[in-house]
């Protein structure tokens, strides 16, 4: 789902930020055929023979999406299914809910990948039809959170707390960003937040906590969309460090270094 309510400086999916369709130009595929206008407009991708010029984001109806999703039904298996992601998919919770409702009729597993910065009603609406929530936490400190994502984390934390009390399965995902939250203090504070959210529950709703180290793979996408990336660091987070930080979260923790990432 295109469109996001946060503006994380390190965002690796810039195409998910704006809710509007965007023109995308990939110079390396251009054969200079000259069929597009200058500057290119939204009718040009149709004329582009190589796909160098494309539209990122199309409007689909719930029914169209469902048809597409059902094509692969046989491959979902008993524990697989459909994950709604973004952007922030819960900004379009009406749409997501209506598709999930149909998926449930087909006995297909459903998951939502969210950063939690939406009115709680948007989450609540999906509870009946969603099996699993992949819930992002970016930083514990309010100042840091506001500086790097545009908002403080109070709504995100209070939504997580409410979600924990519904008994739904949750997987927490934390990006580890150099010089932002890659410290033991930040991670300990995040762990405290998670513990606070599960207070008065048996804590079993949190299935796992995954630390995802910063990477620069998204950077090259910005210029193709005519955007610029405000987060510029040459630093990396080492596998050792990620592993070390993940120990703070106890036995539910997982770092995506060893088994490189199926999440």
């Amino acid at each position, binding site marked *: 789902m295109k469109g996001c309510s946060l503006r994380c400086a390190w965002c690796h*999916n810039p195409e998910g930020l704006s809710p509007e369709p965007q023109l995308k130009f990939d110079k390396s595929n251009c054969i200079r055929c000259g069929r597009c206008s200058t500057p290119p407009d939204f009718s040009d991708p149709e004329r582009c023979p190589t796909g160098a010029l494309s539209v990122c984001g199309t409007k689909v109806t719930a029914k169209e999406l469902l048809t597409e999703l059902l094509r692969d039904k046989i491959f979902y298996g008993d524990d697989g299914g459909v994950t709604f992601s973004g952007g922030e998919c819960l900004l379009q919770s009406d749409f997501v809910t209506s598709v999930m409702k149909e998926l449930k009729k087909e006995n297909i597993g459903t998951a939502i990948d969210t950063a939690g910065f939406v009115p709680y009603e948007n989450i609540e609406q999906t509870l009946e039809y969603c099996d699993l929530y992949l819930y992002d936490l970016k930083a514990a400190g309010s100042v840091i959170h506001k500086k790097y994502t545009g908002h403080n984390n109070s709504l995100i934390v209070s939504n997580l707390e409410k979600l924990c009390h519904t008994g739904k399965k949750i997987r927490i995902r934390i990006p580890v960003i150099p010089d932002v939250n890659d410290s033991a203090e930040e991670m300990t504070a995040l762990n405290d937040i998670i513990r606070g959210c599960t207070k008065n529950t048996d804590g079993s709703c949190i299935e796992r906590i995954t630390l995802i180290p910063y990477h620069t793979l998204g950077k090259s996408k910005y210029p193709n969309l005519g955007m610029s990336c405000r987060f510029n660091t040459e630093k990396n987070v080492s596998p050792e460090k990620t592993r070390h930080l993940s120990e703070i979260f106890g036995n539910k923790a997982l770092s995506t270094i060893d088994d490189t990432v199926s999440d």
Partner: protein
Amino acid sequence: MLFYNYETKEQKIMQSILFSAPKWGNDEDYVDIIARDILEFTLTESEKYRTFSGGKQLGGIHQPHPVPTGATLMATPEGRNKGAPVAVTLTPESGTMKNGPTAALKSASKINNRLIQWNFCVMVNYFSSVFKGNDGKNLLKKLITSYFSLGGLQHQPNVSDVELFKAAQAEPLKYKDLIVRLWGVSAHFVDLPKELQDEMIARFS
């Protein structure tokens, strides 16, 4: 077979258009039914004949070696360059697999498997990280068993690594179907911007 290669600007534009037409291996009935009709017709016909010694014919798809065979062939109307490798058996032609491996397998499963006794393979290249994740083994198992339950008979998953990336970067046209997956994103490696390719090579070296 064409008597010119796609060389001039006009021919290159034409090639791009031809190559982006609906192709086998994307779970699109429009083309898959054409392939199915031709194959099933040929397979059914050939079974009607007996061999010299009275034996039955076996139905199958001739499987040439893609590289040497391709090297001897002129350009072809679907957009393949002169000398480029050819697609084999039920494998989608290099660079035409747009909807991922599940769609390729679904296209292949549309052909009546009872008519075929040999050479029924669908070959797909995967980057090793696809199966290295937490549930990697299960994922591959599920993919294959699902394909078989659709009626598929043979799948060859090629799982590749960093060395292949480097080769793909040097000669992108040869590796158009290489699929990589990272943090929930699947993409054709050669379609990724150069910087991103470099980063992935660095990350997995």
